[in-house]
């Protein structure tokens, strides 16, 4: 497959505007400007592009809502806050292909009628911040950002807004709060950001990878684009693979590539020839899959049918040496730390789950602790403000569902059964 998102990566100067132009970069902006904004949205709709941040929401639907809502100015926010543990797929675009993202944002802004864009970049990516700022300056110098792009009267201004270390800001309403200079606590919906978003104006929030798909859709057209990957959610997809594989990294493959093939064909199988134990397929908060359940096409439609989610496409591979009680504990420790504290089930629940999981891992688990975990998580699921709390409940429930025996052994033998002592 031709590389769309990771093209030119082998070029050490790929982040420079001239290198980007050499491979045909920025030619899709004038092409897009030949069409009415509505026609661009229609093209993206026909392409079948879905949001790559994790939820898989149809992109054109968000755009249509924001574009139709009669309030100005409108904002386009790029969610570059990839903080889901295991996720590092947007980093290569941000650090090595920033102009692809900028081109995507100019076209998307034009389609929505947004004159201002912000890239909400996680604080942990200082290098990406420098690269993006330099790329944005180059784009301004070349008339690709500003008040009159390509002399077509199109206005689009772009600014990098640096986050400061809060996972919750990946949630779009928390991201907006944070952009506005507040604590990153999610807002109640409705109103949805497409109507009342940043600075109370219609706002579209799209992931880095999502926006980076847009120039290619304009280039080849929706029909050709929709032939890539799965029929239900087409396009190229970045899968980032970490953990116990021979060749971890970011892979651009057709959407819907089977998880087993990603691990064994593309990543060279399990490190050191060990036995696979489990895979977390879409970032730390997506449901874990045991080794025998990895014959699933990695897309938004098929993963739920196989008991998990595509999430951010962050595949964490774990071999037989890994203690899953400990991994579950570590994820809950993370979620407790990152819970914004706004709603009670999440704020209290994540702490209780972490505490109970911690004592089980330390050999101090009591009989009934597994049921207690299920009871606490059952009282969180569907009752929290945003998906963070749901994720905490789902992680706990799915680890127990597939590996209950390992939890029971920890309690029965009053120690971590995976630790070599």
């Amino acid at each position, binding site marked *: 497959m031709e590389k769309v998102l990771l093209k030119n990566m082998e070029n050490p100067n790929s982040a420079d505007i001239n290198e980007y132009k050499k491979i045909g970069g920025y030619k899709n902006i004038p092409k897009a400007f030949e069409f009415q904004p509505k026609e661009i949205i229609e093209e993206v709709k026909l392409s079948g592009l879905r949001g790559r941040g994790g939820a898989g929401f149809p992109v054109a639907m968000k755009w249509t809502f924001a574009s139709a809502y009669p309030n100005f100015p409108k904002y386009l926010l790029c969610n570059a806050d*990839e*903080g*889901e*543990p*295991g*996720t*590092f797929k947007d*980093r290569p675009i941000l650090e090595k292909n920033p102009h692809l993202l900028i081109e995507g944002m100019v076209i998307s802004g034009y389609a929505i009628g947004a004159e*201002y864009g912000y890239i909400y970049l*996680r*604080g*942990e*990516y*200082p*290098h990406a911040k420098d690269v993006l700022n330099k790329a944005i300056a180059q784009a301004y110098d070349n008339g690709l950002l500003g008040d009159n792009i390509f002399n077509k009267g199109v206005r689009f201004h772009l*600014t990098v*807004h*640096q*986050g*400061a*270390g*809060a*996972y919750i800001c990946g949630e779009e309403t928390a991201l907006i709060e*944070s*952009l*506005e*200079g*507040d*604590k*990153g606590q999610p807002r109640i919906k409705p109103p949805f950001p497409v109507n009342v978003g940043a*600075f109370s104006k219609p706002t579209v929030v799209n992931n880095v990878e999502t926006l980076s798909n847009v120039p290619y859709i304009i280039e080849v057209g929706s029909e050709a684009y929709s032939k890539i990957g799965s029929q239900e959610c087409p396009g190229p997809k970045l899968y*980032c*693979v*970490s*953990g*116990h594989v021979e060749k*971890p*990294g*970011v892979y651009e493959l057709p959407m819907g590539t089977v998880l087993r093939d990603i691990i064994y064909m593309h990543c060279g199988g399990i490190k050191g020839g060990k036995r696979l134990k489990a895979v*977390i397929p879409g970032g*730390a908060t997506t449901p874990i899959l045991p080794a025998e359940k990895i014959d699933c096409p990695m897309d938004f439609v098929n993963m739920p049918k196989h008991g998990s989610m595509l999430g951010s496409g*962050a595949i*964490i591979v*774990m071999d037989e040496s*890994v203690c899953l009680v*400990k*991994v579950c504990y*570590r*994820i809950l420790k*993370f979620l407790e*730390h*990152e819970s*914004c504290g706004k709603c009670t089930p999440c704020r209290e629940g994540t702490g209780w789950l972490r505490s109970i999981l911690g004592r089980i891992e330390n050999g101090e688990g009591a009989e009934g602790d597994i049921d207690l975990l299920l009871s606490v998580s059952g009282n969180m699921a569907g009752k929290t403000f945003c998906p963070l709390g749901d994720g905490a409940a789902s992680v706990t429930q799915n680890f127990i569902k597939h590996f209950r025996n390992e939890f029971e052994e920890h309690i029965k033998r009053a120690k971590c059964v995976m630790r070599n002592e």
Partner: protein
Amino acid sequence: MFNETVLKEIKQISGKYPTTRAALLPALYVAQREFGHLGADAYEAVSDVLGVPKAIARGVGTFYAMYKHKPMGRHIVQLCTNVSCMILGAEKLSDFLKNKYGLEPGGITPDGRFSLVIMECIGACGTAPAMLVNDDFYENLTEKYIEEILEKYK
């Protein structure tokens, strides 16, 4: 109080947003750079320049992990211990930093050279275990490699 140059810098930043308040996060970064960490004087300076109440500025500042509220070492070692790094040995590296350099999570070396911060995923999972020292990424860490890296930071 900030000096004139810094005031100008913050003004320039806030010009990129439709509200002054939106410049709070970037202004806190500037204050952290200027004061070393966010103490009462830093919050006062930010509050003055943006016209945001001190209580609000502090409330926002303390929400985010990357704003520091106590003096830090000259170099900040930010070690990731989240899942991908953990299963590839990050905890042993944390022990190593403690045993070899006396660096505890959240702590500082007596000579003020290093602080250690345990991070929640720094997006280097494919090259785990990983850390940032100040703004520089270091990946595929081993104990020996950490020794070499830290040599560079005086």
